[in-house]
């Protein structure tokens, strides 16, 4: 009675337990590095050196 339901549960879980970390790692590996913060053009040499 409950056995087929438990097996379905197990199958769904196993697929997702593999898929979730895979998506996460792939997203981190393939992410585009953000450009460095832009220094305001009006900043003085002293402000930049800080």
């Amino acid at each position: 009675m409950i056995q087929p339901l438990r097996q379905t549960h197990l199958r769904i879980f196993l697929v997702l337990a593999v898929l979730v970390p895979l998506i996460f790692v792939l997203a981190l590996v393939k992410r585009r590095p953000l450009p460095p913060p832009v220094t305001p053009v009006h900043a003085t040499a002293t402000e930049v050196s800080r």
Partner: protein
Amino acid sequence: MSGGYRAISWNAQKKRYDAILASGVVLYLLTFIGLCALLNPDATAETMLIRGFGTAAFLLLNIALAIGPLCRLDARFLPLLYNRRHLGVTTFLLGMIHGGFALVQFHAGGDRNPLVSLFTSDIQFGSIPDFPFQILGFLALIVLFLMAATSHDFWLRNLTAPTWKRLHMLVYVAYALLVAHVSLGALQSEQSPALAAVVAIGFTTVIALHIAAALRERRIDRGKHIAMPDGFVDVCAVDDIPEKRARIVSLHGERVAVFRYDEKISAVSNVCQHQNGPLGEGRIIDGCITCPWHGFQYMPENGAAPAPFTEKVPTFQIRLIENRVCVHPRPNVPGTWVEPACIKRRKAKQEAG
């Protein structure tokens, strides 16, 4: 539709549960927005609200998914399971507010319908950094809506427990969609390792707890029992079963709860008709087997809920041989009366013999 609507009865425990839940959410949102304003003063109020509600929903979903295996591993977590559905509905509401704000903020400024804009403004499905992650969040929200909308026992009765369970297992799909939504969205623009670490700790905990609970369950299913020529199976010794409690055994792939109470032994299916909870992890209270999940009750002799309730679980033929409990693995029709095995009578026979 076979089951009628019965309004939720707000008992003290439910009120306490919801009060703690609501204050926890408010406290989290205030802390999150306060910290955001402090660390990132340039962030707009809309951005802080979008992030606050989104992270609150994701955090609650992690907690909701951890409760099930935690209860299997330690019964002390059972009070959390009792009203887990309230946690699920709150997750949906927080997610909906997050989605609503995001839709207005990013898709309502043009001349297209915001929902059309959500699906058409960004279609770079082949690129990971530019993947339209908003669509994943929208799909997860649809699943959470279906679950929240059918969370009342009215739907459980009308859909039947197995169908309702199948529908609610979609929570795992929603979770995977949300991890992808966060990984392809927030983690692309906010590259702090701390944020990635929090997401990783969340899903690792959820997966590890499920695996630990599954391994514990497997021990029950792997137990080997010897069948006798008449089909009865020796499952355990009488003294292996604590008074007013059960021993769960797996016979032909189905779990049976063998209860000992008042010098008697009865066996019923381990599966509660309400939400398929494990009856064998419950106790005999007021002469009835009481499910540990939501307190549904059944008479141990016939597996029927006391009037006016109508739920019934299958019973199993049982007998005692010496000090051993033997159960026939073929289930009876739910609600069938089975004479309990009497421990006193067996002891008297032994003494006379």
